Structure formats: structure tokens, C-alpha cells
């Protein structure tokens, strides 16, 4: 494959020259490909900011949706998103962490454990809209929870549980075995080891994974359309059985209208949604850094 041998210091052969140029071209192409993703993100953000910033003010945050675009706001949607986020976390977090602890600290190496593990990986790959259908059939219809915040939160909890479980497993796995052995050596039971040693050390990692999964839930639209969240709500929810809307759904309902004024509303809504997600991610990053400093 390689060119004819040539004495050191002699002129570059045509063959080697070609190899060198191909190499340079390829390096630039790869760098360019990386830039495409970065540039796309920049263009997207700028596009949204240009459209939405002029429409964004305090009144936008404190007004309900309206047929008149100049009066419309995201109050109900923002409140709905926060309700959904809190309730989803409340449902998904304990179950996911318990599942992760079982799989890492208790589970025997059996076909059953393997099945559960494979199943969790597969669950993470199911499209979110299929979870929406499950929520519609199970929570809205079969359990009679109707189009409530509870139905939405249960559906989203199912959606993000596999993600939290896998993140929590990784965090638990990262706790050094010597810590466990030391605790066992002092006569601790398995649960005492888990509660006293493993969980506290894994907690920042688990929380980071949970927040990232929750920020996915906050951005979800399709499953909530399925469980019957609606675009127009003129009140803030007072309890878990209330009807609700969320930011992405409000944005979608504005995008679906042809008038330009509603497009601006959608862009302003997107800015609010992205700000919410940015806050959550910032918290996750702070937690991650703290965890890294301690380990």
C-alpha cells in the first residue's frame, strides 16, 4: 500500500503528497462537520430570540392565554409545567432510585436480573408518543383519572424512569467497593451499607441524572397531548386532579395558528421554556461539579 521507499530527507513523492493533502482535507471536513451542529444551535437560538424577545415582558408571564394575541401570556402554562415537573419528580424519583439500588446492590446474576436490565434499556427507546397512548388508556380511561395533572405526571414519570434508573445505576456503580467492604467489616447489614455509605456518595450523581431526565419531561409535548392536556386554560391549577396545560403545548397551540402575532407569542413562549430548562441544567452542572470535587 505504501509508496516506494525513499531515502530520508529526499523530496516528497507524489504519492505521499496526495496522502498528506487527503489527510488535511479530511481533518478540515471533520472540523467543519462539528461546526454544522454548533452553527445550527446558534442559528436556532438567534432565530427564536429575534422573533420572541420583543414580545417578552412581565405581562406575558402573568397573563393567561387569550384569543387576542396582544393580551395572551403563559401564566397557566408555566404553572402547569411546574406542577407537572414537581409531581413527576415525586413519583419517578423514589421508584427509580429503589430500582437502581436493587439492580446494583442486591440483584443476583440471574436471567431475571438480565431481563429487567434489558427491558429498562428497551423502555428508554420507546417513542414518547407511545407512552402517551399508554397514559391515555391506563390513567385517563381505565383508572378514571381523567385529563388531570396526575394523569400527565404519571405518564411522564413512566417515560423518564428508565433514564433515571440508568443514571442512578451509574452513580451507584461509581462508589468504590472498598467503602462497602469497610462498612461490612464493621458489621453493617446490606441496607445499612446502602443507606449510610452508598446512597450519600451516589446522591449528587443521582440528582444530576434526575434533573436532566426532568428537563426532558418538561420539554415533552406529544405524550401530554395524548393524555388530554389542552392549549387553552384560563386558570392556574389548584390540585393534582385539575385540568392543565404546559409550556410546550401552549407553544404548539400558538405555532399551529397562521397569524404572525401568534408566531411571536410562540417564540416568546420558547424563550421562557428554554430559560426554565437552562436553569435546571445549571443546577445539574453545579451538582455534578460538587460531586466530582468530593470524589
Amino acid at each position, binding site marked *: 500500500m505504501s509508496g516506494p521507499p525513499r531515502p530520508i530527507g529526499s523530496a516528497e513523492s507524489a504519492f505521499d503528497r496526495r496522502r498528506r493533502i487527503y489527510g488535511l482535507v479530511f481533518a478540515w471536513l*471533520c472540523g467543519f462537520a462539528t461546526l454544522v451542529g454548533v452553527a445550527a444551535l446558534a442559528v436556532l437560538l438567534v432565530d427564536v430570540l429575534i422573533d420572541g424577545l420583543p414580545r417578552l415582558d412581565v405581562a406575558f408571564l402573568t397573563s393567561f392565554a387569550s384569543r387576542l394575541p396582544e393580551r395572551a401570556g403563559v401564566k397557566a402554562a408555566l404553572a402547569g409545567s411546574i406542577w407537572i415537573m414537581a409531581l413527576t419528580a415525586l413519583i419517578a424519583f423514589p421508584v427509580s432510585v429503589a430500582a437502581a439500588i436493587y439492580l446494583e446492590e442486591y440483584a443476583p446474576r440471574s436471567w431475571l436480573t438480565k431481563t429487567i436490565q434489558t427491558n429498562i434499556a428497551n423502555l428508554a427507546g420507546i417513542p414518547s408518543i407511545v407512552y402517551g397512548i399508554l397514559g391515555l388508556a391506563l390513567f385517563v380511561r381505565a383508572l378514571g383519572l381523567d385529563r388531570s395533572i396526575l394523569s400527565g405526571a404519571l405518564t411522564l414519570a413512566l417515560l423518564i424512569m428508565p433514564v433515571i434508573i440508568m443514571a442512578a445505576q451509574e452513580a451507584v456503580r461509581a462508589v468504590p467497593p472498598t467503602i462497602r467492604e469497610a462498612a461490612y467489616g464493621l458489621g453493617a447489614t446490606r441496607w445499612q451499607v446502602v443507606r449510610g455509605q452508598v446512597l450519600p456518595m451516589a446522591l449528587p450523581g443521582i440528582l444530576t441524572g434526575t434533573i436532566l431526565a426532568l428537563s426532558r419531561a418538561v420539554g415533552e409535548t406529544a405524550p401530554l397531548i395524548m393524555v388530554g392536556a389542552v392549549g387553552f386554560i384560563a386558570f392556574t391549577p389548584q390540585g393534582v386532579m385539575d385540568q392543565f396545560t404546559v409550556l410546550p403545548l401552549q407553544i404548539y397551540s400558538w405555532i399551529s395558528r397562521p397569524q404572525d402575532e401568534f408566531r411571536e407569542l410562540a417564540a416568546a413562549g420558547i424563550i421562557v421554556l428554554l430559560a426554565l430548562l437552562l436553569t435546571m441544567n445549571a443546577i445539574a452542572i453545579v451538582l455534578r461539579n460538587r460531586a466530582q470535587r468530593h470524589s
Partner: protein
Amino acid sequence: MASHEGAPSVQAVLSGKRGRRIREAAIRGALFACAAASTLVTVGVVLVLLGETVAFFREVSIGEFLTSTRWEPMFQEQHFGVLPLLVGSVLVAGGAGVIALPLGLMTAIFLSEYSGPRLRKVLKPVLEVLAGIPTVVYGYFALTFVTPLLRTVFPQTDVFNAASASIVVGIMIIPTVSSLSEDALRAVPNALREGAYGLGATKLEVATRVVVPGALSGIIASFILAISRAVGETMAVTIAAGNLPNLTLNPLESIQTMTAFIVQASLGDTPQGTLAFRTLFAVAMTLFLITLAMNILSQWILARFREEYQ
């Protein structure tokens, strides 16, 4: 630890040796229940989809569902051919793949082989942000930026079109390809690279003939996973590609994907027990089976063809 009375108190029992064992077993049982509950979710999905899908196929033959070229479930004269929706999904996912697979792989090669650690530390989180942006935002971007751009280049483009959806879904799945592929590339040991350099290979030759082949199972798995995500993508596609079941391979036309149909059908009022309600489940079942098959394939490739490096 025993109490002063003859009969030990509950607390004493629980803190005693036997009580300790009981408590440990109870905790173990509760934790197991939480892990096992995840399998119930899968069972739930399958049962829910299966129940209504079977009811659907009592009224509509599987032959019509799979071979008819018209999807008109809401019309007076109903047609239930899933092909237009299926082709719509394939068109969007295929277009997204054309964009995301080469860009994602080259991004992965750049991050793993070319960029220094400092540049990498900046680029990786930026790409992660790309994956974290809600899909409804991509829909907005497609409709207000990509589509107008397409229409200036190709004036015959419909307002809602598959190409615009393909482009944004492609951008959306670049991080799936790049981060999983990068993990695979970085798992190839440096000794292999150094061996190739020692034989006089250039950086390009090392990257494309040693590292990429060494990481091929991981790269292919990331490709399949990304395409499966594109097939299941809902909001960006619903917003940008339209709601017209249209058996076409022209990306500039308005189409409808399986996911967009599910959204459209559930936005309208579809009472339970009607055929219209059941079409929703039949389409969802098709979607579920396709994405499940792709996910299993990707895991199988990872497990079967993984190069074991020490």
C-alpha cells in the same frame, strides 16, 4: 436490647437479630418490587396496544392495512392502508439519517481523533444542548426558518414538507450519533493507533482504517438508535411535515408520518370504542414494533460484534 417486660416489645423484636433479618428481607423485597415494576410498564404497553389493535383488525383486514395505498380513516368511504404513513415516516427518518449519520460520525472522529482536550471540553456540552432542546422548538425552527429557506431555493416546495422536517430531525439526532460513536472510537486502545503510525500511516489512514473499523459495532449501533429516534420523533414532524397522508417520495411535498397521525387523531375528539379510536392504537403498535426492532438490533450488534480490548 431486650425490653424489661416478659414479652419483648415490637421495637425490640425489630432491632434484635431476627428482626434485623426480617427488616432486611422486607427492604430487599420492596426494592425488587420497584425494579420489577419496570417490566410491568412494558407489559402494560404491549397489552394496551394489543387489545385495541386486535379489535381494529376484527374490522379491517391485515391485508388492507399493509397493502392499501390510501389512508383515509376519517372519510365517509374509509381506507386503512398504513403505507402512506409508513413511507412518510421512512422519508423523514431517511432524510434525517442522510444528514445526521455522516455529520455525526465526522463530529465523533473530530472529537476523538483531532480536537485537543480543551476544545473537546467546550464542544461536547454544546452538542449536548442540541439534544436537550424540546422538539416543539425544532418544529418552530423548521416552520419559521428552514421552510422559508427551502422555498426560496425550491419555489415549488409546499408550506408543510418532509424535507424541512428531515433537516431539523437530522440536526436533533446528530448528538445521538456523535456521542455514542465517540465513546466507541475512544474505546479503541491507543496501542492500535501507535502501531499504525509506526508503520508509516497518516492520521487519516489511522482514523479511517484502524480506529473506525475497530469501533464499527458501536458506530452502527449509534446509527440504528438515531434512526429509531427519528422514526419516533413527533412534534417537529407534526409541525413541519404536515398532516396529509400522501404516498410520495418527493421530500418537497406535504406528507403525514405515523406519529403525526397519532397526534392529529387524538387532538380531535375520538370516542373510545370507535374504529377511529382503534386506528390510533394500530398505528401506535406499528410504530412500537418498528422502533423496538431497531433498538433490539442495535443492542444485538453491540453485544455480538464488539471488539474486546483489554
